[in-house]
């Protein structure tokens, strides 16, 4: 299906706004959108939300023959699926240019950085080895799929456990999950991709572009890095020239971003582990709260004026909380009553909002109390007429 074209009006406005050092969603140039990492019940299943972009990664394994050229190594496949569910312009089946670029970059990030110890996946040299497969499904496309996918893939690999194998001579046994605890993969480091987009001949640079920014960008540079400052991938696309200083600056920015995201991933992994150990609710079940309609849920960032007062130089209304990772989303539900002051009815009984007196009170007792209160009130009001205190205050004073 066709994609909605971007009008000249939007294009000019966005470029103009970027030239004023502002972004449509109120972020600063080097801000990521809110990042949420969640793990599924099955091992090696990871769901990452970056703003409204959503990616699901699933790792699976099977035993097969190793490659002829590398008889001592296991095999790692990386597969990126762009379905029409993510964006109507993606086609089912046929890989678009964008899709090929994405899966190639993901492969370079995961395989060629050698973050995974493939030798440990070998069972019998030249005969049997584990074949790992990382399936990355893009669930929603709101820009910057690449960063989101790389976070999802590496978290899924870190979360995954393969069945234990024992070899006695010729005999190979693959133990089920009940027999032996599954073994984690040996991850040497966590390479992550950070994309930088450039506008007006590389004059302006933005991190984590939204889909509209991606449409007007001139070029993109992808830096793959781990927190040890090791460069794993570097790619520049688009028609623009970059200065050496810019590349160096990008790599140093990438380092800070990668360090922060790696921390978040570890935190999410640790949370999941603890939840599993305790037998708490884990997996995506945590994301769903049963008492609310989630379809109309909006993260409360569209117009947040409170934080605006703090950061005055921001373009507009969104908070610029950088990578506020595991923050719970605030929910908008229709017809939420306004916050109103607590009204004190009787001693120990408060009322919020409308609804009149509480019917839970012991009725006769309350009546007599109120009567007594009224009588006393008369006296009090006679005494302090000029003060003009309200009834409520008197009630509070009297009891």
């Amino acid at each position, binding site marked *: 299906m066709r994609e909605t074209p971007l009008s000249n009006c939007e294009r000019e406005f966005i470029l103009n706004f970027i030239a004023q050092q*502002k972004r449509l969603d109120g972020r600063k140039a080097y801000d990521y959108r809110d990042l949420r990492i969640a793990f599924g019940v099955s091992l090696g299943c990871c769901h990452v939300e970056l703003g409204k972009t959503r990616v699901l990664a699933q790792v699976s394994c099977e035993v097969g023959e190793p490659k002829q050229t590398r008889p001592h190594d296991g095999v790692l496949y990386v597969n990126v699926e762009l379905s029409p569910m993510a964006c109507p312009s993606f086609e089912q089946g046929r890989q678009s240019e964008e899709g090929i670029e994405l899966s190639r970059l993901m492969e370079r990030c995961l395989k060629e950085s050698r973050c995974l110890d493939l030798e440990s996946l070998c069972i019998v040299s030249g005969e049997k080895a584990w074949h790992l497969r990382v399936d990355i499904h893009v669930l929603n496309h709101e820009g910057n799929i690449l960063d989101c996918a790389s976070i999802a893939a590496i978290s899924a690999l870190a979360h995954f456990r393969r069945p234990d194998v024992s070899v006695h001579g010729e005999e190979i046994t693959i133990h089920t999950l009940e027999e032996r605890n599954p073994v984690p993969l040996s991850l040497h480091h966590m390479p992550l991709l950070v994309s930088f987009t450039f506008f007006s001949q590389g004059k302006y640079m933005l991190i984590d572009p939204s889909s509209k920014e991606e449409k007007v960008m001139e070029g993109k540079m992808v830096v793959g890095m781990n927190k040890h400052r090791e460069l794993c991938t570097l790619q520049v696309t688009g028609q623009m020239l970059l200065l050496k200083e810019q590349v160096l600056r990008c790599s140093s920015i990438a380092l800070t971003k990668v360090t922060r995201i790696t921390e978040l991933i570890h935190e999410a992994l640790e949370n999941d582990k603890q939840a599993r150990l305790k037998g708490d609710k884990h997996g995506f079940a945590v994301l769903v709260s049963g008492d609310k309609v989630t379809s109309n849920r909006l993260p409360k960032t569209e117009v947040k004026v409170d934080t605006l007062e703090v950061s005055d130089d921001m373009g507009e209304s969104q908070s610029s909380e950088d990578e506020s990772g595991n923050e719970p989303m605030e929910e908008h539900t229709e017809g939420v009553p306004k916050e109103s002051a607590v009204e004190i009815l009787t001693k120990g009984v408060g009322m919020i909002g409308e609804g009149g007196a509480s019917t839970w009170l012991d009725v006769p007792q309350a009546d007599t109390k109120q009567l007594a209160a009224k009588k006393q009130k008369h006296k009090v009001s006679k005494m302090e007429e000029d003060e003009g205190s309200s009834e409520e205050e008197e009630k509070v004073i009297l009891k």
Partner: protein
Amino acid sequence: MAAPIGNVVIPGDTFSLLQLQPNDEHKKILLGPGLKEEEAEIKVLRPGILRFRKPGVYWVDCHHKRYIPAKGDSVIGIVNQKVGDIFRVDIGSSEQASLSYLSFEGSTKRNRPDVKVGDIVYAKLLVANKDMEPEIVCIDGYGRSNGMGVIRNGGFLFHTSLNLARKLLNPECTLLKSLGNRFQFEISVGVNGRVWIKAANDVQTIALVNSVIASEYKDNDQIKEMCKRISKAVSRMEVD
């Protein structure tokens, strides 16, 4: 039992004709979107709120994003292509609409309108038929533009749900009234869920865009409250 007007109905719910027409049987009933007559009873096809308008119009109001063209609708489209004498315009429907270069005010075969690919046009649907390509025009029956035509001079275009667009077009719309008390801006709303806004500066424009988007799930009091906060915040930003 009368039909649950104003309540939520879900696909598969059925009403008898009598339920819809409790008092006067001679009145005609008009079934709008989301309702279908089948074997002497009326079936609900969409989840949403059942609405009624006198004398006998019933329809289901539900959250929608895809626009289905209807004759006479005012829409905002994006010019996608120039093919010979016509422009192909994206109006958010399943098929692109066609717009002849002669259907602009004052255009003749010699005097072509200045329309480029990527421009946005405010136009009316002339032909909307499920079997035919929709056609839009930028003139009324007298050949005058009547506010339609290419929208120029900046501003920002964004997409909303169709419900929100209809809400904005309601003359009683609280949001536009309370925003209008505080800001000076131009707005044009297409029933296809596209809204173009232009304010005094870019910051105000974005503030307005965000307030329109945020107003979707707010009631009137909350909207007023939000407008107050936004105008405060924007004025503070402009002082700095």
